[in-house]
């Protein structure tokens, strides 16, 4: 069964149609890269799936309509890593990762042994266990990004959505994070990440969905989606595109001439 | 604005000091007199010859503040503003020492004779102010008659001996009359002992509810004025602890108009209090 199925999803923000009748499904094991120029609707679409934006049409998680699932139950199926990385209170790393266990806690409950186990596993996976007691204000940008991913992992959901998780990361952290997301997909999770890093997306994602002006322009294997023609029409750039040692290399070279 | 006037009058009494006894006897008799203070209003109403007094303050016509409200009705009412008083073209203005300093200064600069009266803070002050009003208005005979009437009224209403009972005044916002106030003299004259003065309060001061409770006065005095509309100032009278005290002691309601200023009506206040004290169990 599909983990996630969107059917004719339409989103209006004010009077503007931001997402126009989009349909796609995500199966276990898929690592979907959600790409498209700024303003294409990537963030809005991800927020709608996580319940942050009202929509028309159907979004089904494991066959159940998203809006009919109680918020805590949905949080056990789907974790979301928003673009916003502002952590307002200076709590410790392990407490922050522990927030991922919120859906499983009673109002006054503290973390039980299975929760602590999930927190430990997530920290180990993101290689942050060494500074588990450090306050978040003392983390570097890369460390903070890893801690936030660990929080989403601690949620132990079959679906993981991430909004530009690699933004602002240096190449090493960027690469490491893409590898981890790909690894999660290999383990049978469904992962959707929006990104502007097309080269990494082409290398690590099993599938790319290209959004432009609220519509799906292309959906398929990375090599099929990323073409020079689409780089020109959708992103407005001429690009150098090649396959080197089995990996896609993509480098925008110049702005495309305006059509007409 | 009644209780505000009442309150300010209380404050005046609290701050009061006796006026110096230097009178301007060389001046011609005033023909057009304007009084701009509730206490001088009432003395002037009682002492001035017919036609001599032109205007009194608007408070003099307010039945809650003034014991002579009916008598004041025929006169022009002023609000203590320099402009309105100047236009009345008075040859004598009578003011209280604590009212409208700026008005008084201005009127003097304009060449108008202004006489000031300190508030009454004892029966003796009242007697002196009556005499002084007579001299200023050139009506010594009327003043002497009023003084004699005052003396006999006080003598008639005074308690013959101390009852040994204690009385405490308790006004809105928990104010009380301590030592050196006219009310203190009234309490003494009625044969009672002023609880607030005994506790060391002087002038008009806040009396904490728990101190009032602890002092357990035999008589509780308030003005029993029904407020025109609600305010927190009156909540001290609905406090359960106060109600308990009021239920277990004698209550004397003395209208504010008898105690704000001194005059023959001061005797009414003494009588009311003496009667209440007699009813109080010892």
């Amino acid at each position, binding site marked *: 069964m599909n983990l996630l199925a969107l059917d004719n999803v339409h989103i209006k923000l004010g009077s503007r149609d931001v997402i126009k009748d989009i349909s796609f499904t995500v199966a276990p094991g898929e690592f979907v890269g959600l790409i498209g120029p700024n303003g294409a609707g990537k963030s809005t679409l991800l927020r709608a799936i996580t319940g942050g934006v009202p929509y028309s049409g159907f979004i089904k998680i494991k066959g159940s309509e998203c809006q009919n699932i109680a918020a805590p139950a949905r949080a056990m199926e789907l974790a979301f890593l928003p673009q916003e990385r502002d952590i307002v209170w200076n709590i410790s790393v392990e407490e922050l990762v522990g927030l991922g266990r919120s859906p499983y806690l009673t109002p006054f409950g503290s973390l039980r042994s299975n929760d602590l186990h999930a927190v430990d596993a997530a920290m180990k996976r993101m290689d942050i266990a060494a500074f588990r007691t450090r306050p978040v204000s003392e983390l570097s940008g890369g460390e903070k990004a890893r801690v936030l991913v660990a929080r989403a992992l601690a949620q132990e959901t079959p679906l993981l959505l991430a909004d530009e998780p690699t933004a602002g990361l240096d190449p090493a952290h960027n690469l490491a994070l893409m590898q981890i997301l790909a690894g999660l997909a290999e383990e049978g999770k469904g992962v959707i990440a929006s990104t502007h890093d097309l080269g990494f997306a082409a290398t690590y994602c099993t599938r790319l969905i290209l959004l432009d002006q609220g519509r799906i322009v292309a959906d398929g294997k990375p090599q099929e989606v990323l073409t020079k023609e689409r780089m020109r029409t959708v992103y407005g750039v001429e690009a150098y595109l090649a396959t080197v040692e089995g990996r896609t290399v993509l480098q925008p070279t110049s702005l495309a001439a305006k059509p007409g | 604005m009644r209780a505000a006037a009442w309150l300010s009058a209380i404050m005046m009494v609290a701050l009061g000091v006796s006026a110096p006894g230097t009178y301007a006897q060389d001046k011609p008799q005033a023909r057009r007199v304007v009084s701009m203070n509730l206490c001088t209003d009432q003395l002037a109403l009682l002492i001035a010859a017919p036609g001599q007094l032109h205007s009194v303050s608007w408070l003099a016509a307010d039945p809650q503040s003034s014991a002579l409200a009916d008598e004041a009705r025929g006169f022009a009412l002023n609000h203590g503003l320099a402009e309105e008083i100047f236009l009345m073209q008075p040859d004598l203005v009578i003011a209280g020492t604590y009212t409208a300093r700026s008005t008084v200064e201005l009127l003097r600069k304009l060449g108008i004779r202004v006489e000031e009266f300190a508030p009454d803070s004892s029966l003796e002050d009242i007697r002196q102010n009556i005499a002084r009003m007579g001299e200023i208005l050139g009506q010594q005979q009327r003043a002497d008659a009023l003084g004699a009437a005052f003396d006999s009224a006080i003598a008639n209403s005074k308690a013959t001996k101390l009852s040994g009972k204690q009385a405490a005044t308790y006004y809105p916002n928990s104010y009380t009359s301590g030592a050196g106030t006219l009310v203190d003299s009234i309490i003494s004259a009625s044969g009672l002992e002023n609880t607030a003065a005994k506790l060391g309060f002087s002038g008009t001061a806040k009396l904490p509810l728990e101190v009032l*409770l602890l002092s357990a006065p035999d008589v509780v005095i308030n003005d029993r004025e029904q407020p025109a509309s609600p305010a927190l100032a009156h909540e001290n009278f609905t406090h359960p*602890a106060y109600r308990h005290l009021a239920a277990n002691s004698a209550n004397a309601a003395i209208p504010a108009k008898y105690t704000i200023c001194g005059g023959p009506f001061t005797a009414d206040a003494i009588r009311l209090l003496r009667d209440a004290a007699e009813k109080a169990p010892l």
Partner: protein
Amino acid sequence: MRPHIRYRLTLSALGILTLVLFLLSLTVGPAALTFRASIAALFSDKADVIALIMQEVRLPRALLGLTIGATLGLSGAVLQGLLRNPLAEPGLIGISASASLGAVIAIYTGITLVFPLALPLSAFAGALVAVLLVQALAGARGSILTIILAGVAVSSFAGAMTSLALNLSPNPFASLEIMFWMLGSLTDRSMLHFWLAAPFILVGWLMLGTLGKALNALTLGNDAAASLGIDMRRIQMQAVLGTAASVGAATAVAGAIGFVGLVIPHLLRPLVGNLPSRLLPASALGGACMVLAADILVRIIAPERDLKLGVLTAIVGAPFFLWLVHAERRRLA
């Protein structure tokens, strides 16, 4: 697990301090009663004067100090967590001033004479309007500055309307009572006031006290909190109603007491490891300590002057607020 131990220690210390201040509040007053006599009179069923003073004058004062302080501390912690704004506080964002306005309208029109419950209800309505207004003005992602500016506008307007309502009252004492409504006092409040406010305060506490888990999730922002299973609309509703009920009732019987909800959460946050859920009980106890202490001090410093509580809390709170603005100015800009 060191934060847990520190949290327990902090709570215990605050609990003991609250108890000590509560007892002090019961034993400090213009009537010089000995500690033993006053505590004994508190439980005495004799109707003597000391029992009357303890049970009808000092007990309500101490109880109101305790509950109102706890309300202000708790609501400050909740508002800061909900709005993700270290400067949020019932006083600063206009809730107290609007609750005062509601209470003033109910009292001075005489409605409370026939229907006493109108007092907390009207204050609740005033507080509710303020929270909703500030929230609407600030929007879902309101910046720290927007919320404070909205609060300034709401506060000034409510203060002006309170003054107008008092001026319009035919009772001459009314206009002098603006001090009480703007700065707050517990002098000579009675058990009547306590019983009038207590149900609203209790309901408010229940609503605010159960928000800990949601506020923890909100540390990561609204979107992350929503994805963690937090129903944002329900949480906001619960926080708004809980704040309006408890702060409204507190203000209705004691006037607006500022800065408690600002200072206390800030002082205690590092002691409880910054986690909002742990801050809630600590701030409630801390707020109770601050208001009890202020109310003891007004009785010691100038017993005859009836100093207002808000004077003392502002002496501590306003410089603290300036310091916070200084510390936060990078985020404000």
